[in-house]
């Protein structure tokens, strides 16, 4: 009898790369359902075309350019496509979606060496590439629930945060926060439904696909920073309960809109581009939170999550280099 000999360990936890990817895809399904409900056929077309083009581009590059065995079965390209789609407005023409997929997979991922070697989050880099290249297309947001059966000709409006930037702080009194929880707001098609996104977060935590460190530190930073800004805008008389209420609403709006949940839970936690240690993850999360609020408050864009995550992606190697886990037996 031939016996196999190999070094220990002889058993494996059975977690695979594709399982990680498909679990994230499953976690995103509630948010996708919300976007189908509010944005209708456009959401379906944009998401499907994004997934398809990402998968096809990765396949073609691996097969004909790199001449290696295509690994699209591991779900990574599907997830990138799904995330890219969820980060786009639901009335975006397909040809622009395809350009975004080329930027995401071709440039950000494969040009850097494929899965595991990219410095930036592919889906986000794709989105930001489109935002800079096609600013008009990328800032026309279909009004939720208004025209479910129309695609590029859907009725459009502003997002909550751009409106807030225009109208000023006092405008928050007009916002019905319930709409933010259920997803009745303008924006990228996957970022609107807060409850659905949080449901996926719970699922990912339960399946131990991601840890709490990155999302929670982003949430906490954005919330506290915005709360402080809100209190400042209210005049800063901390004795007044009404001021606290207003600032609290302001901070909650910052948390529930502008793609913060989608970014914090599903994009910032991308394994490849986020730090390896839990301490590093917290630093990274705080960085994203601060940058997001700074861009929103003082920058040129009403939403800032994509830029914040991409900037912190660039810091990830540095964080990995300097932030070490607590070694056993050392103070």
């Amino acid at each position, binding site marked *: 009898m*031939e*016996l196999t000999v190999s070094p*220990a360990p002889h*058993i494996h*936890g059975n977690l695979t790369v594709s*399982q990680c990817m498909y679990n994230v895809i499953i976690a995103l399904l509630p948010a996708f359902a919300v976007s189908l409900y509010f944005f209708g056929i456009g959401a379906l077309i944009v998401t499907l075309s994004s997934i398809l083009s990402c998968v096809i581009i990765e396949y073609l590059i691996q097969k004909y350019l790199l001449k290696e065995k295509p690994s699209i079965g591991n779900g990574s390209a599907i997830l990138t496509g799904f995330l890219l789609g969820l980060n786009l407005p639901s009335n975006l023409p397909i040809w622009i979606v395809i350009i975004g997929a080329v930027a995401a997979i071709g440039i950000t991922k494969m040009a850097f060496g494929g899965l*595991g070697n990219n410095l930036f989050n592919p889906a986000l880099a794709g989105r930001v590439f489109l935002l800079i290249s096609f600013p008009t297309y990328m800032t026309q947001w279909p009004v939720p629930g208004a025209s479910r059966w129309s695609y590029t000709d859907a009725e459009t409006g502003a997002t909550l945060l751009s409106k807030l930037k225009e109208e000023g702080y006092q405008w928050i009194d007009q916002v019905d926060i319930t709409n933010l929880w259920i997803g009745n707001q303008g924006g990228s098609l996957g970022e609107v439904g807060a409850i659905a996104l949080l449901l996926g977060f719970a699922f990912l935590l339960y399946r131990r696909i991601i840890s709490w460190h990155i999302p929670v530190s982003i949430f906490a930073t954005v919330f506290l920073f915005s709360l402080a800004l809100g209190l400042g805008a209210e005049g800063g008389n901390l004795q007044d309960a009404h001021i606290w209420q207003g600032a609290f609403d302001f901070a909650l709006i910052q948390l529930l809109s502008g793609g913060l949940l989608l970014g914090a839970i599903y994009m910032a936690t991308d394994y490849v581009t986020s730090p390896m240690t839990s301490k590093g993850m917290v630093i990274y999360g705080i960085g994203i939170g601060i940058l997001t609020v700074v861009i929103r408050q003082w920058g040129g864009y009403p939403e800032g999550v994509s830029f914040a995550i991409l900037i912190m992606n660039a810091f990830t190697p540095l964080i990995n280099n300097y932030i070490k886990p607590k070694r*056993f*037996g050392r103070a």
Partner: protein
Amino acid sequence: MLKTFRIGGIHPKENKLTAQCPVTMVDIPRQVSLMLNQHIGAPAKCIVKKGDLVKVGTLVAEAGGFVSANIHSPVSGTVSKVDQAANAFGVCTPTIVIDTNGDEWEESIDRSTELNETIELSPEEIIQKITQSGIVGLGGATFPTHVKLMPPKEFKPTVLIINATECEPYLTDDHALMLESPEQILVGCRILMKSIGVNHAYIGIENNKKDAIALLEQMAKKYPGIEIVALRTRYPQGGEKQLIDAILHKQVANGALPVSTGAIVQNVGTAFAVYEAVQKNKPLVDRIVTVTGDGIARPGNYRVRLGMPIRELIEVAGGLPSDTSKVILGGPMMGKAISNLDAPIPKGCSGILILNEGHAHRGTPSPCIRCGKCVSVCPMGLEPYLLAKLSENHLFEKAEKESITACLECGCCAYSCPSNRPILDYIRIGKNAVNQIIRSRKQS
């Protein structure tokens, strides 16, 4: 809240198929082979020659130094060969072969089964007795027990910890021993306490052995100073440093001896062997071995004479299933896959694990996706992905700075890696290279 260690760790599927199997006595083998280097340290020196008659318990090889151990004959009969023989991994090692004839024991050995609680020997005499009896760490490390009981003078032991965690999946030999001989273990524990001059001992047992915890807790009432500690089931809790951290909440400093925390750790099987040696004058000639795995007809906990061929013990358990692909000495996390089934069972063999085709092969590695799982499970707080990468690229100096030598090779990283990367293989290579560099630096 159950106690456990503070950094990393995993909880693999326990697969304790034989947890409820009582200890089964195995017939005396027709022939035994005793490897002279079956413990850590210097090989023992053979003191018999071909044709010599021996009894059970006759000294056949003497310790070859302070860190070494005596070897006794586990059977009565004739020495038929003193020669090189292939060990379980196919490496030739000096071995004494004894043909069995009857079952005659040395007269000095007390073979009665009744419990002897009175410890008459002085601490020095106890350690001497343990040294003579050839006892080594029976959890698998096979470090000579008497060496651990005589720590360097600057360290004063304050507490004894008995390692009954049995954190490896599949293995149940310690569990079966605790259910079979709880009082002997407790007396053994008292003997060890006396030998190092401490009044307090903890017996750490993982919570997946509730019956053993309950039984020992009840018995321990009679033995002042011994406390049973139920631990949260988590691998690698049986690691010496992890166990000290779990029970005493103290971390052994990097590079320091475990006794620097005041604790001396001994395996529960070792405590039993100490009882037999000191109270019954019986040297280490047998042990319990768990035979378990895929498709084994009679998995169980078998008390066997040391030196019995591995193949024969597997036959007792129903023989090798036809789809066997891997045979492992020890548990699935740290055990070693063997190639030679005719090799003898050594002192450190806690189990024989049989895996079939489906479980014996590793998955195909794919690129690291930097998920950080290896970092979060490492019980030493290292960065396995980084150490593996540094080792792969021969950046050994950097690997030394990143504490590669602190790795205890528990395998949590490779177990958890979704990309099936051979992380620990690379770390072992790097660790060896770094240790060599450190040694050559000391010499120059």
